[in-house]
């Protein structure tokens, strides 16, 4: 079966600092894979390399068997590859509805329409409203982002990305900064995602990783240390030494 996302021998360095060393990764359609590693391991860098925000020195990225290494960010999105950000990237002056409708409108290629009022895009608005319902943001639909508490903003961050109907979804610490009383909303939202989306999630919270992921990749110093099911990773001596041990004591 063709992997939904495949990364081959990806390398990138800034001078002497290697942020990616021969990274190989494959996600089957519908995969639930976690990417863990200590701070500075290059997790977000890998997301940037995959989505095209950063160009690799060598190596290749494929979506459903099609090479996308030379495509720009926007073109990769059109191939079904979407991401969320570790730090919210929202349209702060716009309402929740507009934030999400904007994403849906771009996916439906309505964004070049110069003369038709935005409200006439009924299907776009309906789809955005549907997403808002799914993430239980209904009450805040017409509020500007800046009036929302951080946890709710985090949901908008995810909803914008889901507006792209991705086939491969890269989640960069979706629950980061969310109070523990609200993180369950995010986890439930992730559980409710369609099964056929391949998901790579970066997460520090081991509980989330063990609950969500079927496969875990451990990244250390820009290289893959080990990959396997969560239970095996938890027992792995090497991982305990560099990551879990440190985490438990910290």
């Amino acid at each position: 079966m063709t992997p939904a996302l495949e990364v081959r021998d990806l390398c990138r360095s800034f001078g002497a600092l290697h942020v990616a060393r021969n990274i190989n990764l494959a996600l089957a359609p519908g995969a639930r894979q976690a990417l863990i590693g200590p701070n500075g391991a290059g997790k977000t860098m890998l997301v940037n390399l995959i989505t095209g925000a950063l160009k690799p020195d060598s190596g290749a990225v494929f979506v459903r068997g099609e090479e996308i290494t030379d495509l720009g960010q926007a073109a990769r999105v059109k191939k079904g590859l979407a991401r969320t950000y570790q730090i919210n990237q929202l349209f702060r002056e716009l309402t929740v509805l507009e934030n999400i409708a904007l994403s849906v409108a771009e996916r439906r290629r309505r964004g070049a329409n110069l003369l038709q009022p935005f409200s006439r895009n009924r299907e776009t608005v309906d789809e955005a409203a549907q997403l808002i319902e799914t993430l239980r943001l209904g009450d805040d639909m017409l509020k500007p982002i800046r009036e929302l508490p951080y946890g709710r903003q985090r949901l908008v961050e995810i909803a914008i990305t889901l507006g792209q109907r991705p086939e491969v979804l890269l989640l960069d610490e979706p629950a980061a900064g969310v109070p523990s009383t609200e993180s369950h909303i995010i986890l439930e939202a992730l559980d409710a995602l369609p099964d056929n989306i391949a998901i790579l999630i970066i997460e520090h919270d081991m509980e989330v990783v063990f609950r969500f992921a079927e496969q875990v990749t451990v990244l250390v110093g820009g290289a893959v240390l080990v990959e396997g099911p969560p239970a095996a990773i938890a027992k792995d001596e090497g991982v305990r030494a560099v990551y879990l041990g440190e985490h438990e004591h910290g």
Partner: protein
Amino acid sequence: MNAPDRSAPDPHGFLRGRERWRPVEALPWLIAIGAFFALPDYMILGTQVITMIIFALSLDLILGYAGIVSLGHAAYFGAGAYATGMLSAHLGWGEPISGLLFGGAVAGLVGFVSGWVLLRYHGLTLLMLTLATAIMLQELANVLEVWTGGFDGLLGMEFTPLFGLFENDLWGHAYYWYALAVLAICFLFARRLVHSAFGRTLVGIRENTRRMHAIGSPVHWRLVTVYTASATMAGLAGALFAEINAYVTLDVLSFARSGAVLIVLILGGTGRLYGAFVGATVYVILEDELAKASPEFWEFGVGLVLVLVVLFFRGGLLGGLDSAARRLKEARS
């Protein structure tokens, strides 16, 4: 009347409500028409105000909506003015409406080409490049003396009466209506544009360019498109200026003019279309009055007003009006 159901906000109604015409939007047009009958001796000044509104409106499209700050918007005003002027002075084409369209088209072309290059850059670099574009155009107009008249200005324009009937009379009556009609068309276009899906994506780019890339938006093309539309509109304002005065100097491309339009828009309020109306009216009238009172130091007065507005009204005069109205509402409830 039924109170709206708070548990289920209506997304369609909300978006339609934003786009709907409000009664207060008739006000500027009523004032413009009323001014013609109430102040017939001030129509030349009135036409100046309208030209400035069109110019400021064009800047609002890129600055207020797409977030492109420009210090060289006079480049397109000047391109339009010289194009229309040279068409008449050298080729003898003096029909005003086609001359106006020609000026807009040339400015649009200049906007497209320069925008395509400029808009690859951001922030301070972009700001400097807009400034450089206008300076380069001004120098070009200075050097190409044979066509532009250089430092002495472009003379010898002659325009035929509008529709073969209405001469540009000494009191500026016919051209007041002409300018008002051009403004109405530009405004309708701008209003449509900002409320379209395209207009929303511009605001998205202003608010978070990085995220727009990440949701697959062709950011560069969107910016080039709005920049071209804005340059065309600025060119129409410049062409109108040329036809009204039948005289164009290097001043149309000057940094002072780029700065003035920026001041007008900030004074009135950016990103709200009507800011251009308020800002241009206040600026042109203030300039006229202050210049009468003190021909040497009038700019001091303009500067003072700008400082006061920026310090005490967030979002310009209209922004200040908005928050005052909101406070009044809150105090009542």
